[in-house]
């Protein structure tokens, strides 16, 4: 018993000594924003504060990192207009021109019939109304603002320009990976495979900077709007190919190049209790016929377990998404694994809540309505992806993609009976000084058959300190329970 006491005393001495030393040694190394930090700036409901005015990257990032990721705004505007060939404000205003900037209530539907023409049908019919069951995310009123030019960062523009015309598709419309280097592969989509080019622009988009750290809070709601899920998770993310912001540029390392790694992320839960300590890593490969690899640290088992990479169609733990819906849409185009026939079914402007600038948009606890989001006319591609494998969960998907930036806004997924099964709306934050949409966003996901919905707020920070050590087996064990 005496030795047990000695052991325990030694244990605590070590604990306290390290506790005293280590904050000094490592405090500055891994900067991040936790869910708790985010909550201080903006609560998940009933909080109209423009949190992005306070929670700025200038404050969060080390000065050298911030300086490296910010660029001259005017130059970005010019460069990006050259890349895509237009500025969004010049492309819109043709449909229902009588709808001017201002605030419109759902009660104005009869007064302004142009709204119906200008809005995406699902949003107009199902969500432009007062909040209430069965779904979260109704807009009882919308605030229309003038269309903005959204430009992407100079390194993206530069890489896109340098590689313009070099990226090729094969005769099935699949990308020849060896021809893609960096940037947006098809800044001016055209030709037989125009829809595929749009989808590749989406898949290759810079979802933030190449190494980043996420914090997300998600609430799930039953058809009665009762909260049945309340999750907090964090994530690390690394892009391996086409790196333009963070060193190393181009390929992340030799291994990424030789294996053909595209990106990898680690996703770990902080709550609820049953999920705390579950950690998942996913490695996405460039080869269109190669499945991702998924490893899971299972909290109850205290083990790393290889998971089925082919399990991409089942709902993730009662959420309103499947693995193939990650980041709203992340399924590779392939001729062997659930192949799609893609077509651009519309190319026009829509009135949409496209971007978050100051973060004042919020969800109210009454009716789980969305308020103060800014709606603007955006030129958009509407791409229909018809699934050619009848065994896939969806028969087709419809994606609404911004024409100026290739960032997705809305996805509608239909089951094999043609019923709308799941949909997702992503309102992403835009950081003008960086020319960047990352995954800092408010996301609404819907299961239209089970009548379940969820609201998720994510905050992302560029994080050069994220490395392979965070997304490999060590990363699983260290973050696992």
């Amino acid at each position, binding site marked *: 018993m005496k030795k047990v006491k000695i052991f325990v005393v030694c244990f605590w001495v070590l604990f306290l000594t*390290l506790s005293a030393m280590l904050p000094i040694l490592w405090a500055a190394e891994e900067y991040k924003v936790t869910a708790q930090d985010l909550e201080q700036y903006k609560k998940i409901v009933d909080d109209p504060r423009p949190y992005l005015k306070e929670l700025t990257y200038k404050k969060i990032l080390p000065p050298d990192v911030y300086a490296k990721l910010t660029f001259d705004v005017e130059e970005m505007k010019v460069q990006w207009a050259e890349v895509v060939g237009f500025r969004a404000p010049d492309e819109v205003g043709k449909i229902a021109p009588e709808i001017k900037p201002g605030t419109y209530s759902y009660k104005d539907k009869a007064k302004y019939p142009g709204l119906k023409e200008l809005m995406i049908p699902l949003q107009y019919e199902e969500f432009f109304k007062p909040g209430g069951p069965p779904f979260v995310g109704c807009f009882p009123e919308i605030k229309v603002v003038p269309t903005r030019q959204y430009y992407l960062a100079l390194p993206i523009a530069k890489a896109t320009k340098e590689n313009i015309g070099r990226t090729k598709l094969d005769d099935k419309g699949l990308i020849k990976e060896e021809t893609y280097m960096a940037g947006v592969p098809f800044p001016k989509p055209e030709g037989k495979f125009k829809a595929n080019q749009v989808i590749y622009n989406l898949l290759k988009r810079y979802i933030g900077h190449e190494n980043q750290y996420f914090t997300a809070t998600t609430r799930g709601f039953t058809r009665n709007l009762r909260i049945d899920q309340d999750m*907090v998770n964090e994530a690390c993310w690394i892009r391996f190919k086409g790196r333009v912001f963070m060193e190393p540029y181009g390929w992340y390392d030799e291994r990424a190049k030789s294996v053909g790694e595209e990106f990898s992320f680690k996703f770990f839960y902080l709550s609820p*209790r049953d999920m705390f300590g579950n950690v998942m890593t996913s490695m996405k490969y460039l080869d269109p016929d190669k499945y991702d690899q998924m490893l899971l640290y299972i909290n*109850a088992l*205290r*083990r790393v377990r290889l998971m089925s990479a082919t*399990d991409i169609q089942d*709902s993730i733990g*009662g959420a309103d998404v499947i693995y193939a819906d990650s980041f709203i849409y992340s399924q590779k185009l392939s001729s062997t694994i659930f192949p799609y026939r893609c077509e651009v079914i519309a190319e026009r402007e829509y009135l949409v809540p496209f971007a978050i600038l100051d973060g004042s948009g919020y969800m109210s606890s009454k009716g789980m309505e969305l308020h103060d989001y800014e709606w603007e006319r955006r030129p958009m591609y509407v791409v229909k992806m018809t699934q050619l494998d009848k065994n*896939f969960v969806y028969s087709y998907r419809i994606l609404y993609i911004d024409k100026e930036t290739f960032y997705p806004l809305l996805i509608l997924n239909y089951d094999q009976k043609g019923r709308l099964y799941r949909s997702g709306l992503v309102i992403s934050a835009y950081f003008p000084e960086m020319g960047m949409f990352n995954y800092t966003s408010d996301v609404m996901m819907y299961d239209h058959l089970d009548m379940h919905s969820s609201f998720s707020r994510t905050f992302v920070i560029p994080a050069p300190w994220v490395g392979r050590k965070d997304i490999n087996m060590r990363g699983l064990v260290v973050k696992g329970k």
Partner: protein
Amino acid sequence: MKKKRFLILFLMVGWITTLTFSSAVAEEFSVLGRPLQLFGYATQEMSFGFKDTYDTENSLNSALMNLFVEGDYAITDKLKFYGSSMLTVDWAYQLNSHRDDWNEKLFSKSRNKLNVDDKYWMLLKEARLTWTPGDFMFRAGKQIVSWGELLGFRIMDQINPLDQRRGFLDVEFETTIIPIWLLRADYYPKINSSWLQDLGFEFVWNPNADFIPNQDIMAGNADGGIWAPNVPIPGAHMATAYGRIDTPQRWKEGNEFGLRAKANMLGAMTTLNFFYGRDNSPVTQLVPPFMSPVPPHIFASDGDVLLHPFQEGHYPLLKFVGLTVAKEIIPLKASFLGDVAPTVYFEAMYAFDSTFTFSNPLSGGVLSRFGKSDDLRTGIEVAWKVKIPALNARTYFNITGEFFWRRIMDYPSFEEIAGYKKNNYQTFLSVNTSYFHNKLTPSFTWIHDINSNSNYFIPKLVYDYDYHWHFTLGAQLFKGAKPGQGLQLFDNKNQIYFKVAYKWG
């Protein structure tokens, strides 16, 4: 002393209950500017038996309550502390105390062992400090180190002992594993290879700061309570075992070492394992007077004699090497089954010079000795998600099947090893799916012991109202063909149970 213990328990229940139901408790706090996560749950389970035999009750069998609290504090980005604590109380002892049947069958005598889990290592689950500099991870304290791949059978997973005193389901799956005092060091070198994606080395040292063995189901109603096995002895019942089980002396004996190499290569997870330590279960042999009645309880309530085994034993050395491989077999993906490929998990361990009790069959197992044999344990698991639209249009079925084979390499030619043949086979099958957006999860588990042709079935229905409230209705059913062999020992333990859980954080 009893008053003091009661007071401590009372305060602890009060503290945990207050934490559990206090609206002031959020899942994440900030302590000295660093995040502290606090979680917990409270569960109350009631089980009812079907049969009225000496070894069970056709009424309330158990009323287990668990209060669990856990916390994770990130002192820095690379240093964190995790601790968990649980209080388990089986209120069946209070609720049944007035019942003559309960008392006459001597279940009430097991109260000291099974009413309240009040040993320090039962109350303190985990308390560990993790330091993760660079490519290393160091973890010290009371912790769980889990090896192996199979979910149903425990082959390589031999470091931590198990608590199965209250049956195989026990109180909560996660807490049937008993954390022990360990030091662990992991190293994950940087890999820059196309075929080898990940590599890790894990070293575990158990200094035997406190020897905590498996907590197995005990013989005799007065010790084992409602789970005491029904050992068939004509005209008699097996009662409390007496004798001496030697335990390794703290610090001086029973040090354990484990080394494990883990690799993610060619799309497969592979581990090589080495372990030198002690078996968590003892080997025992009967010693004079072997089996005998002991006053004051000579006869059981049904008139049979109560026979007490007298035994001696020890915790023998366990030395093994092992291999695990996990790989998804993508070519077996079938569209008509939902396009998910099966994942195969394989485990094999070879233990050297394991100690067994060799008994003389002519003596009815009374004359015995300790003997040694190498021991091969291997198993394979296939985990497959399949779509069966006729039964569930939205969600897949998770099907997990396992086959376990244990071979006693040097099985004695004349003598027997109690409970084992030369080759021993068992299977495991688990099926589950979910309905109503993951709210309702039915599952069915079947464990089959091939040698004894005995079975254990667990049908279960879980309703997750939300992330706080969870309700479970289930049953445990045993059916064996050969009296006294395998799971037949629990044939009378069939029961249904209901559990309500509130989780916070």
